[in-house]
């Protein structure tokens, strides 16, 4: 039965190439856009390497300072994080690191701008980078202020060509560092791990960075399990509230919170205050926008299927006159639609893969390596099936209500 349906579907689709092509284009295009969007969203929400344990990680991303006549919004400073986050009880690991800044080097008259980040030793334990050669620097390097650096593969190529870099010197911003390790490039969609060069915080020559409460740093806390999140958050908030601000004239209170990545992304999207978790609302908004985006092609598909059904009214009339039940007719049309969306779904995924590789190569997103992973692929396939069913139901319903006698005469509705 199913086999004859499939055969019939194939014959019907080939009979009207224009309709088939239009429907295919519509579904393939919609699916590819949705797949690309979900691949981008996925890479921001769950970036994978090096932030492989994102589910157990909380971060401090922003601080709000309020004073009598100003309100400052900025990244936290080293002193604040060192005092309030570093030794949180119950945390498995805590790392404090710089937000990163561009650093200029001149190599044989060529200008090279590298994204430069200062980190502590724990950074390399909490984030799991893939080392191509060498090893990370350690907490000792940080406390002694050793001029060592970890670079990424692109920086190695820029400075040393195809040669290994470990043990060689690299000049950045007028200072010389010894390269101790080379890691794989990390895309900017994982902002905590993105950089070209990493050096110990101890190499920064600021003597009094302990005093700084605002600006330039960030921190990540790895919990033993998600159940510890509430305790960690409460303890961090208590410590921030106790901070004594030296310059009381300008700022009086500081607000900061340990946030999950999703909550941080959602806060940026909706522009709400620090510490409010809007991630559920973001997921809902994303779902809603996707649904909206699907409406137009779905209506289009329903329209085209409708015309296809009506065109074949005499065929339906004959089948009904010979005793075919409405159910089996509906089944036949749904199978036709599913075959169509199945083909379009595969075409859409291929198109999405092409689009993603264009984005990867364009250099618009530094070190992007977006791809269609299995989860995105299955999401896309499920979406295609949903599409096929949805757009097939209304025409099939209309068809099943057709009066066989009128249908046989070729008259409609």
């Amino acid at each position: 039965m199913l086999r004859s349906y499939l055969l019939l579907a194939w014959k019907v689709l080939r009979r009207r190439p224009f309709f088939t092509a239009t429907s295919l284009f519509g579904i393939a295009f919609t699916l590819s856009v949705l797949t690309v969007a979900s691949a981008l969203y996925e890479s921001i929400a769950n970036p994978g390497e090096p932030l492989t344990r994102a589910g157990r990680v909380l971060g401090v991303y922003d601080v709000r300072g309020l004073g009598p006549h100003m309100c400052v919004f900025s990244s936290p400073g080293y002193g604040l994080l060192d005092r309030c986050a570093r030794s949180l009880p119950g945390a498995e690991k805590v790392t404090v690191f710089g937000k990163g800044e561009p650093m200029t080097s001149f190599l044989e008259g060529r200008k090279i701008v590298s994204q430069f980040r200062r980190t502590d030793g724990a950074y390399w334990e909490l984030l799991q980078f893939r080392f191509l050669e060498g090893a990370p620097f350690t907490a000792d390097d940080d406390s002694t202020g050793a001029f060592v650096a970890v670079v990424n593969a692109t920086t190695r190529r820029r400075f040393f060509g195809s040669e290994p870099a470990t043990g060689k010197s690299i000049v950045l911003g007028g200072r010389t560092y010894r390269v101790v390790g080379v890691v794989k490039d990390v895309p900017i969609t994982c902002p905590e791990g993105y950089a070209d060069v990493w050096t110990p915080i101890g190499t920064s020559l600021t003597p009094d960075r302990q005093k700084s409460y605002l600006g330039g740093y960030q921190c990540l806390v790895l919990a033993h399990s998600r159940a510890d999140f509430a305790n960690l958050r409460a303890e961090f908030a208590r410590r921030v509230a106790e901070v004594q601000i030296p310059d009381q004239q300008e700022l009086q209170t500081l607000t900061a919170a340990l946030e999950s990545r999703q909550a941080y992304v959602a806060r940026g999207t909706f522009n709400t205050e620090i510490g409010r978790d809007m991630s559920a609302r973001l997921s809902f908004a994303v779902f809603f926008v996707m649904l909206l985006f699907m409406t137009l092609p779905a209506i289009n598909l329903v329209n085209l299927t409708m015309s296809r059904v009506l065109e074949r009214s005499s065929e339906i009339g004959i089948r009904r006159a010979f005793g075919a039940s409405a159910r089996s007719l509906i089944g036949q049309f749904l199978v036709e639609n599913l075959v169509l969306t199945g083909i379009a779904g595969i075409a859409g995924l291929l198109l999405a893969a092409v689009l993603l590789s264009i984005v990867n190569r364009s250099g618009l997103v530094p070190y992007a390596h977006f791809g269609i992973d299995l989860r995105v692929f299955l999401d896309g396939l499920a979406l295609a099936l949903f599409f096929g069913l949805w757009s097939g139901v209304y025409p099939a319903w209309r068809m099943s209500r057709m009066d066989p006698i009128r249908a046989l005469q070729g008259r409609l509705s």
Partner: protein
Amino acid sequence: MIRHLIRLTWNRRRTYPLLIAEITISFLVVLVVVSSAATFLRRYRLPMGFDPRNVWAVTCDVNASGFFDERSQEEHERQLLLLREVRGLPEVAHASYVFSAPYGPHSSTTTLDKEKDLSVETNVAGDDALATLGLRLVEGRWFEPGDGQLNIEPIVIDQRMRRLVFRDGKAVGEEWAETNDERSRKHLVIGVLEAFRRGGELKEPLPYFFYRDHPEKASSLPLKTLVIRLRPGTPTAFEETLISRLRALAPAWSFTVEPLTEARRRHLQEMTTPLLIGGLLAGSLLLMVALGLVGVLWQTIIRRTHEIGIRRSLGATAGDIQRQIVGEVMVVTSLGLALGFALALQAPLLPPVRALGLHFYGLCVVLAAAGIYALNFLCAMYPSRLAAKVVPADALRYE
């Protein structure tokens, strides 16, 4: 003719609701595209108020010390030393510190009117910034070395702020009080600039004013950006010399140079990429709708061969048939657009549309509607020609 078409459409109303929904949605899509394109085009054409050519922005990373930390006198003096050194270089025409450079990431704003939720962007700049950035004064004067002796804070405002605060009255020489929470500080307006659109060509222009960077004392905002106007024809290799000179004087600081023309290119790319992607998506959606419409019409023609045959044999010309088909499509389009208008009328309540201005928004609505009419007209052309080709004898034999 039109009444007849409407009646025809009405009689076939059960086949149309999906088509109408499609037209309504595509109208809304076109409206969004047209109004954002028009907004950005309008912004692009407004005067910038500064000249980015031959200007470099040097970001001095004063050791990542944060905002509002205790700023040491030593740091301040070193900054002045750097400025003197840069001014002494033969390639440099003018140089000045500013708080936020054009196209840069930092900005600061203050409230102008709390009830109306109006804010104004502020900046801090030195006496030489007028020549460095190529600012255009409309009235009054720029900051001068003697301004440190004034017992009131001098400010230079732009025309947008002038319009908001002083309406048509005199601005130069007037006092204006900046009110933030309980405190209020008095300022003296000494000049009016044409504009200063720091955010860039495609950002919304904001009312603006400059504080003076008093070299006598460290400002409470850290001035980390040194803007430099080079003499025309300076090679890009000068960057290396400049950085090494600066580094010799402040070994602990790091410096990054970006020409403003480069920053401008980056800004335009950053702003137009999402627009381009949105435009492409909208274009593909419309193409899809257009193809669907052609398909549905085609189907209709095939089904109505009989009717068309009768009309032809009763003396209707090919042109009559074509006009009828196109006319029917136009009636359906109008129905869809009427629904779209009803939805578009709700939009002026949204803040982005209010910022656009009702007049402008109306124009966008008209343009979008015209676009949809044109698209549907084109889609109807081919099927209607097919219909016109129906041979009456064949069509009547069909049954």
